[in-house]
């Protein structure tokens, strides 16, 4: 790529002018951007971990042991994946607090606030499904509790629990379902909603200065 076309692309995704106050890092602490950076780190390290992970009840935990103790730098990639995931949850939460404190949920940004809340929920589910994939004793009982809790949602609980966690009794199908959510459907939805989220920030007048 030629340098001028790269510059043109960057200028295209950035606003033409920004309010002076928003150039201060302490104005937003770049929390949304950092959360996105964590998301990209998760995608990269997650793709690497997929080369070793085996989504079946007897093989899931041994495959993670293999990554941790036998694969070269496996422990580095898994730890980056784990900690970037935790950092993403914290960053998204703090980002939400910042948006709330600067009253950025007020019109015209109300739709973006709703998208942000949905993104927060999806990040929680993404984090939780990753926690289940380890399939140790803790993950097994977490799966049981989460499925039971989801079933208690009035009217839609049973169906929702089946879609999200698989059959009632623990089998490979449950783990494969959680795996599919973790590596495909949730990241794809997150990426799609994040694109809209960013686009709306630009459309609604840039970084949330008082309007």
């Amino acid at each position, binding site marked *: 790529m030629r340098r001028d076309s790269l510059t043109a692309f960057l200028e295209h995704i950035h606003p033409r002018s920004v309010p002076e106050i928003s150039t201060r890092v302490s104005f937003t602490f770049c929390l949304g951007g950092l959360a996105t950076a964590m998301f990209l780190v998760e995608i990269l390290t997650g793709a*690497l971990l997929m*080369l*070793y992970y085996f989504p079946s009840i007897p093989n899931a935990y041994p495959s993670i042991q293999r990554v941790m103790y*036998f*694969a*070269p*730098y*496996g422990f*580095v*990639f898994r730890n980056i994946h784990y900690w970037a995931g935790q950092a993403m949850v914290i960053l998204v939460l703090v980002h939400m607090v910042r948006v709330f404190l600067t009253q950025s949920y007020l019109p015209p940004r109300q739709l973006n606030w709703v998208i942000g809340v949905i993104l927060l929920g999806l990040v929680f589910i993404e984090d939780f499904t990753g926690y289940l994939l380890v399939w140790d004793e803790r993950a097994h009982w977490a799966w049981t509790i989460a499925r039971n809790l989801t079933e208690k949602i009035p009217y839609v609980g049973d169906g929702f629990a089946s879609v999200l966690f698989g059959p009632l009794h623990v089998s490979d199908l449950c783990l494969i379902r959680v795996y599919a959510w973790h590596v495909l459907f949730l990241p794809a939805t997150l990426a799609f909603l994040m694109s809209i989220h960013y686009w709306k920030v630009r459309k609604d007048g840039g970084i949330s200065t008082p309007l």
Partner: protein
Amino acid sequence: MTRRIFPAHNTCYRKIVMPNASPEFNTKRSFLKYLMVFVSGFIAFFSSWGIARFVFSGTGQKVDRTISKELFQSINREKPYFIPQAEAWIIKGQNLSESVAFDDRCTHLGCRYKWNQDKDLFECPCHGSEFDIHGQVLRGPATRHLPRLYLTEASSQMLRISEH
């Protein structure tokens, strides 16, 4: 006390400090830019190296070309004997130096041939190449004989199958 005043754009310093550097490499800003590129490249190189090692690990199964002497003693001299973990056929002779081994891949396209007991020859399932017990081509499409491997002592308990 006298103070020496340096001009803001002293061309002499360029010549003295970095005589061979490119003209862009003279200001603090450009130096920092090159430093950033260098550090980023350094990080990118070692990250890629780690990722490559992670990705390629375990993709090629290592062949353990050793067999125990006990197993070797038990082999029947009448016919070739297959050692799965060594991926090799052994044809036992009067003693170790007269014994030979063959890698179990056909010299045509690498399919794994088998010993056909009825015909007394090695037969490749993919394209029908045939080799006799000495590894000589009897029928194509393979044109090269089976490369011969030798059995040598690896330790007091083990034998090694190798090319030399």
